[in-house]
């Protein structure tokens, strides 16, 4: 494996009570890349994301990000190291506005302990003003500014995906994990999302995404990895992966089961 990888997954196995979700999976994500992860339902894609985001710990193997192992770290440390994510089933904070979601994303930058918050130190107020400006700039970039003060539960699904993305970007990630960013979106929204992801890559954010929509992922990713039944089936440029007989078989196989 090359030395210049941002994320290296090394022979990772994850078992839940004996049920093997991932078995000896190795792959890498290079900086500046948009990498796609595909595979039939239950292949272990979200499990792999949860391992990278430190929401789960691998049963065996190692995950190395920027040269340091993520194994054993709590999830908030992954965010501190520069890994941000969105969720397959959108995870928002009910009752909070769109702006507040981004401000929570900027939590790390507030650097304010509970004591400083309880006393509302002047430094905190100054930081708060700066964060607010930054949050608004971010919302503006994602065309969410008109909804800044709107509670999220009143928003349509397509916007929620973008709110999640805004919140993740607030972390200023080096690596962005997108778990099915296109699901639940209409074709126009999907196109806009693809455009947005490309823009992020151009700014230097590395993107690793799980996506079911083949047109979307093949058009977007520089490289695609395929998981099936917890194992890495193959890896390579989209065109090559698409033609791979093993991939075709895996997807047809799924079709037979269904």
């Amino acid at each position: 494996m090359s030395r210049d990888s941002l994320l290296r997954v090394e022979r990772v196995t994850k078992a839940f009570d004996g049920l093997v979700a991932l078995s000896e999976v190795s792959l890498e994500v290079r900086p500046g890349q948009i990498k796609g992860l595909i595979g039939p339902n239950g292949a272990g894609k979200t499990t792999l994301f949860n391992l990278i985001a430190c929401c789960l710990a691998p049963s065996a193997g190692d995950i190395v990000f920027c040269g340091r192992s993520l194994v054993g770290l709590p999830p908030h440390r992954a965010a501190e190291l520069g890994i941000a994510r969105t969720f397959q089933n959108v995870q928002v904070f009910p009752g909070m506005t769109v702006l507040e979601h981004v401000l929570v994303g900027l939590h790390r930058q507030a650097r304010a302990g509970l004591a400083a918050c309880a006393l509302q130190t002047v430094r905190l107020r100054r930081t708060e003003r700066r964060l607010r400006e930054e949050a608004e700039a971010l919302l503006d970039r994602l065309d969410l500014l008109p909804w800044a003060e709107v509670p999220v539960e009143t928003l349509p699904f397509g916007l929620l995906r973008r709110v999640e993305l805004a919140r993740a970007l607030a972390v200023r990630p080096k690596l962005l994990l997108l778990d099915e960013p296109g699901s639940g979106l209409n074709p126009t929204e999907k196109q806009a999302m693809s455009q947005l992801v490309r823009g992020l890559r151009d700014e230097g954010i590395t993107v690793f995404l799980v996506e079911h929509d083949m047109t979307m992922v093949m058009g977007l990713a520089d490289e695609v990895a395929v998981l099936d039944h917890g194992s890495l089936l193959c890896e390579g440029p989209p065109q090559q992966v698409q033609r791979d007989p093993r991939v075709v078989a895996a997807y047809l196989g799924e079709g037979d089961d269904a």
Partner: protein
Amino acid sequence: MMARAWGRTWFLAAAAVAAVGGVELAWPGTVARLTRGLVSADLLIRAGLFTVVLVGLNLLMGYAGQASLGQAAFYGLGAFASAIFTVRAQALGIPPSVAGAWWWPWLVMLLAAVAVGAFALGVGWVILRLRGHYLAMATLGLGIIVYIVLRENLGLPHLNLTGGFDGIVGVPRLRVGGAELWPVQVYYFVVWAAALGAMALGLNVVHSPAGRALRALHGSELAAESVGVDVGRLKAQIFALSAALASVAGSLYAHFQAAVVPDTFGFVPSLELVVMSAVGGMSSIWGAPLGALAVLLLEQLLRTHVLGFVPAVSGELEPVVFGLMLVVIMMFWPAGLVSSRRVQGAVWASR
């Protein structure tokens, strides 16, 4: 340097508190006369004490979404710490020159709050991993354990520190220099200064990154963690803060009542706190004083106006009415009195 995040409503509330206190100070008993015995200085002090506890409980339950059915335990620990270290100072080997000084009870109050907060931080670190009903059960258990430990003399009957069932009598009044903060009309100011202070503290937390993080982890711990919120730590911290506030209120209670008994801090009082929190509105700092006042007023109303007409029943009607009240509130104002339009008009200014 400190700034404030609490706005106009807080100052209005402070002015109202001061006005009522001023009138009571000049013409004692006025409030009771005007309300035909419904509201007394005693009731207002209790409301102030509960407000301090409820600010913490609302941050914990309403904002962070972590249930506590044992909050009266921390209230009791503060009360007993103050009672033990003032009344039993001699037995504990504290020199009279220290124990007799005016600042001693204040120092005890402070140290008790710190100790109770540290205790809650440790306990919270462990039990706040639990969620929903399991957390509720754990805090319930904690409350009962603390109650039993207080009742059973901390397991050291020969020292008789807590006084067992009978508790401790003769807790001294608070003083500043040579001046005793008594009668009750004076003590009112002490308690409500604490209540307003707690509310300011609570409002500061709510309008800060920590307050946002609390609401976020309430909504989705997974998502809050994914952006770098140390959920376990923050939950333990807010649990500790709520415990420390309850401890201060307990200390103030001990010096007010001049006597403490374990039964004041058992399971039913913990439940009463939850009812107050729900009645006032747990997702609001303003719900704290509202809930405390509303429930205490209703209790008083029952005692003076209703129970008198129903000769066959004694105090046992109270829990029944509490239960009914909780059901009605949950049905019609699930967000508490704070959510009613009229109250909101007043609260809105503070946002």
